[in-house]
């Protein structure tokens, strides 16, 4: 019997440690599914380990935090320390999106997949340059053509969108009805 390949059951602490190491090296948020595949453990085991790790960071008031974003888990710094981090990295916040680009993005996020004429209807202005900006920044992507006259291109938000706006998935966006109520109260 080959002792090398015999699988020793791992302790919970060990699983938590490996999960931490994997989340640390992953370039993009890493999913529970992928973690489970690599560790050859059940999904539930990984979920528990992630939960424990998240609590550990919180408990010791670490400068890092484990959070769920864009369908996976990621280690990031805590927002409170942005000033010191910027000072060290010598960076400034990225240029903000223009109002027009943000509005266009909001329409696309809630109405996706959506065509350019549909966006025009809601915004009341041509949005070509805003759409180009969003495509360049990879916040939106083409999602096939609509089977209607002219077969216009449809757009939807990307994974990059989830990352830049700190969302687990699209369902985490507040419901559009909340904003309708706000609109009626002006």
């Amino acid at each position, binding site marked *: 019997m080959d002792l090398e390949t015999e699988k020793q059951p791992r302790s919970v602490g060990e699983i938590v440690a490996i999960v931490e190491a994997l989340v640390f090296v992953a370039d993009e948020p890493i999913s529970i599914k992928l973690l489970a595949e690599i560790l050859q453990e059940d999904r539930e085991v990984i979920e528990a380990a992630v939960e424990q790790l998240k609590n550990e960071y919180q408990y010791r008031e670490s400068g890092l935090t484990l959070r769920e974003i864009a369908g996976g888990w990621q280690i990031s710094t805590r927002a409170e320390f*942005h000033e010191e981090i910027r000072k060290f990295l010598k960076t400034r916040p990225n240029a903000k999106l223009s*109002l027009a680009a943000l*509005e266009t993005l909001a329409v696309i996020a809630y109405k996706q997949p959506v065509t350019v004429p549909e966006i025009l209807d809601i*915004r009341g*202005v041509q949005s070509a340059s805003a759409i180009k900006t969003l495509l360049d920044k990879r916040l939106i992507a083409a999602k096939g053509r609509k089977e209607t006259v002219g077969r216009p291109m449809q757009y939807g938000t990307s994974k990059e969108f989830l990352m830049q706006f700190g969302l687990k998935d699209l369902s985490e966006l507040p419901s559009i009805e909340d904003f309708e109520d706000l609109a009626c109260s002006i």
Partner: protein
Amino acid sequence: MEQQQPTEQFSFDFQTETPHIVRQSRDEIRLQMGEFAGPLDLLLYLIKQEQANIFDIPIARITDEYLKYIRLMKNLDISLAADFLVMAATLIEIKSKMLLPREISDVPEEEIEDPRQELVDRLLEHQTYKNASQMLWTRSTVEQAVFTRGRIESDENNAEVNSTVFDLLKVFQKILAQHKEEVLLEIEREEMSLAEMLKKLKQTIFLHKQINLRELLREMHTRQEIVLAFIAVLELVRTGSVNLLQEAIFGDIVLMKSK
């Protein structure tokens, strides 16, 4: 600044009339205009300014204000998007519909559709997405304060795998731009000095006795060569080595070796 035209319904002179939307300086107006991405934005702003209820828009008043604004934008040479004019037409249409007497019919009053209904729906939808975009703005601000680890080199994150058609296009454009620069360099290598041009010109005139100026310039390949040749001709005329001959008005000028 246009003259005041009191007869025109929506004439506006901001020296004499000062609607509350217009404040001290032109610059400020310009700044405020910049915020109105479109006609719906402007309308929402006016409705708030008038403290009107969105479900009962005083259409005559809002239409007047809207047209004043458009007029003002024209006076300030702010190019107007066609969308603004379409909205102006819509407002006037609604206004006129509301002025028309209602037909007497059996339909109860509540069931007659208000001419403003469609506009209100659009305004509400627009405001909804404006609110949503504010939420996005807040989220991105918070997110910008959060940092993740830098990239670790691995096969998977190598750029070749991750690039899209757009990246390819960008690279292609860069290469094209570089190529253009190379061509420019080649031309520079062929560059001629004024002395060389003078020498060349003198030799040609010595050989052919006379040259047609138009043909001489046509042989030059670059803008710079043409300029140089022209200066060289002027120089030769100044020093008296050549004479100029023009046989007809607007006719060709011929350079002749002076005797």
